[in-house]
């Protein structure tokens, strides 16, 4: 299954044609990284269109939940049950707890970005009765393959920028205030003072997000992942257009169907370095490259 965000309803048919299986939409207030959001009233229309095209519709609800959000959260989950949503991405145990009370835990997909790093933790989440578990993006190909061989219901981010820091603080607004400057802009880049690479940073009402310096890209790994038993693949389309997303889906679909791609894919801005790197536990340990 190939899942991606599509921003415009009109592009759903093209997305389907390119080989997409599931659409992930953000709608406030429980979504994060809301580069493009839809209104709650539109959700039913999206659901109808998806049904007509035989696409599955998923909702981004990955915001960290605070006590004052709980009533609205329960209400929102009941609405999602009512419209028979296909899946809900979440990162906070509170979402699970309320979904279980409503009886829709089987729609949930756990996507905490960083927290799931072993087959043993995948097993824990699986026995909760949820649909799928997203692995941390920093795992090596070898680690993912080992997990996939033991556990079926995992999902892998194969393409796009991914969040490496989620803060409740408004870090940009605070800094601008400190400088006595004003900005309405939400999206900037960070460059560490002694380094070159740029880290995209996005601030919204729920907090601040820092992203990987480059988008992950898996043209060379998707077939191995498929062989190892991974069936769910996600493309994060943040900072890109529907046309770009659809083009990528097309390529990944071909690869999943066993086709060889002749075009040179190496010139893209994406990187697959994370598949080959192993992080270390402390200063002085040697990072290994495979």
């Amino acid at each position, binding site marked *: 299954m190939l899942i991606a965000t599509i921003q415009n309803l009109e592009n759903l048919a093209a997305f389907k044609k390119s080989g997409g299986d599931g659409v992930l939409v953000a709608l406030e207030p429980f979504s994060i990284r809301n580069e493009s959001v839809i209104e709650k009233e539109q959700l039913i229309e999206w659901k109808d269109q998806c049904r007509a095209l035989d696409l599955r519709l998923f909702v981004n609800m990955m915001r960290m939940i605070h006590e004052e959000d709980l009533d609205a959260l329960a209400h929102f989950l009941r609405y999602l049950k009512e419209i028979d949503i296909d899946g809900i991405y979440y990162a906070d145990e509170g979402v*699970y*707890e309320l979904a279980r009370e409503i009886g829709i835990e089987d729609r949930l997909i756990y996507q905490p970005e960083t927290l799931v790093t*072993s087959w043993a933790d995948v*097993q824990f989440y699986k026995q909760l009765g949820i649909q799928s578990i997203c692995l941390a993006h920093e795992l090596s190909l070898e680690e993912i393959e080992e997990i996939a061989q033991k556990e079926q219901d995992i999902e892998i981010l194969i393409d796009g920028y991914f969040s490496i820091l989620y803060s409740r603080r408004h870090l940009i607004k605070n800094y601008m205030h400190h400088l006595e400057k004003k900005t309405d802009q939400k999206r900037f880049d960070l460059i560490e003072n002694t380094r070159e690479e740029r880290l995209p940073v996005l601030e919204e009402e729920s907090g601040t997000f820092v992203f*990987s310096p480059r988008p992950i890209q898996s043209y060379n790994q998707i077939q191995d992942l498929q062989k190892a038993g991974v069936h769910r693949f996600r493309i994060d389309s943040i900072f890109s257009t529907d046309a770009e997303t659809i083009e990528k889906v097309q390529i990944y679909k071909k690869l999943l169907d066993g086709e060889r791609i002749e075009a040179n894919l190496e010139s893209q801005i994406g990187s697959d370095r994370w598949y080959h790197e192993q992080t270390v536990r*402390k200063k002085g340990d040697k990072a290994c490259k495979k």
Partner: protein
Amino acid sequence: MQKIELLAPAGNLEKAKTAIRYGADAVYIGGKQFSLRSRASNFSLADIQELTDFAHRHGSKVHVTVNILPHNEDLEGLKEYLLALEEAQIDAIIVASPYLMKLAKSLPVSYQVHVSTQHSSTNSASVRFWQKEGMDRVVLGRECTLEEIEAIAQHSTLPLEVFIHGGMCIAYSGRCVLSNHLTMRDANRGGCAQSCRWKYHLMDQEQEVSDPDDLFSMSSKDLQAIPYVQKLIELGIASLKIEGRMKSAYYLATVVSSYRRLIDTIYEKGSVSAEEMKAIEKEIRKAENRQTGPGFLNGIPDDSVQLYRDHDEIVTQEYVADVIGYDPITKTAKLLVRNYFQPHSVLEIFGPKIISTPVKIEEVFDEEETLLEVCNKPMEIVYTKWDGPIEIGAMVRKIKE
């Protein structure tokens, strides 16, 4: 109702014992394996056993952090380690990986399992989740405001632990791998390089938005929750936690004894006067090496709770000696020198039973009874007449202007 627990960090056996002597009801430590803060000098199983013996004799408890997020390769040996901790008679483990929590619960161990702040539990539905999973306590995320903590406490029956002092993560704990990406050091396996505290250029495409002389940073002031402790006690919070397994024994002694005094005063008198609160805040500042603020307790932090400049880090050099002996007949104190100080000066003593008190000293002699002009050799033993309160294990500091 059970008295609230004051929970202190400790990087080694000496620090743990100091924290307990200065009033910690419990200490938390890391073992050599499976713990974050890999640079803190972590405890062997023999050290842990020695500490639990010491702690239990003093009516204190020992919590062990087993809070890494394990990768496949880290899973081996976990079961044996959890059983060994039971042998060492620890009181609780602090855990981030749910697999590990459930593993501990499946073993014949009598210690509690606490859900680490690495999980960022910030609402009562999460707390309920962990309660149904059989856990004994949840450490709340540091992102909760006091108002939110109050509401969570009202809606929860599981014991809650709240951070009251020390370093803050800029992100939801556990949800940050900035260190992994900038240094290859795994933040969730003990390698965090605190890359958030570094300086960054903030760019709007090719245009620099940041001030090159005052760059962007994601560094937070440390937490200091003295004004909020009474409320936390009233809310029925189980444990108040101090951060800092990397901090010195002097820092611990100062911070732990200050909160001890605050908590005991609140229990004895029902409240604490503004004057007393001020005195305790002043005392705690003597050990701080970073500016402090209310964290999230007073609401989502604005720029006044952030650090942008290098000189925001304060160097503390006040701590000068440990009291290692006292002769009541000659009224002579035996001191172990830690930092430079001068004879014929006014110093300040504080100890497990002594509130900070100024004491004027005169001549100081070394072990050969030679009169010293300055005391500047760390770990040298010196003697001086002591006209003031004293106890073995007390610490001596300079008085700052």
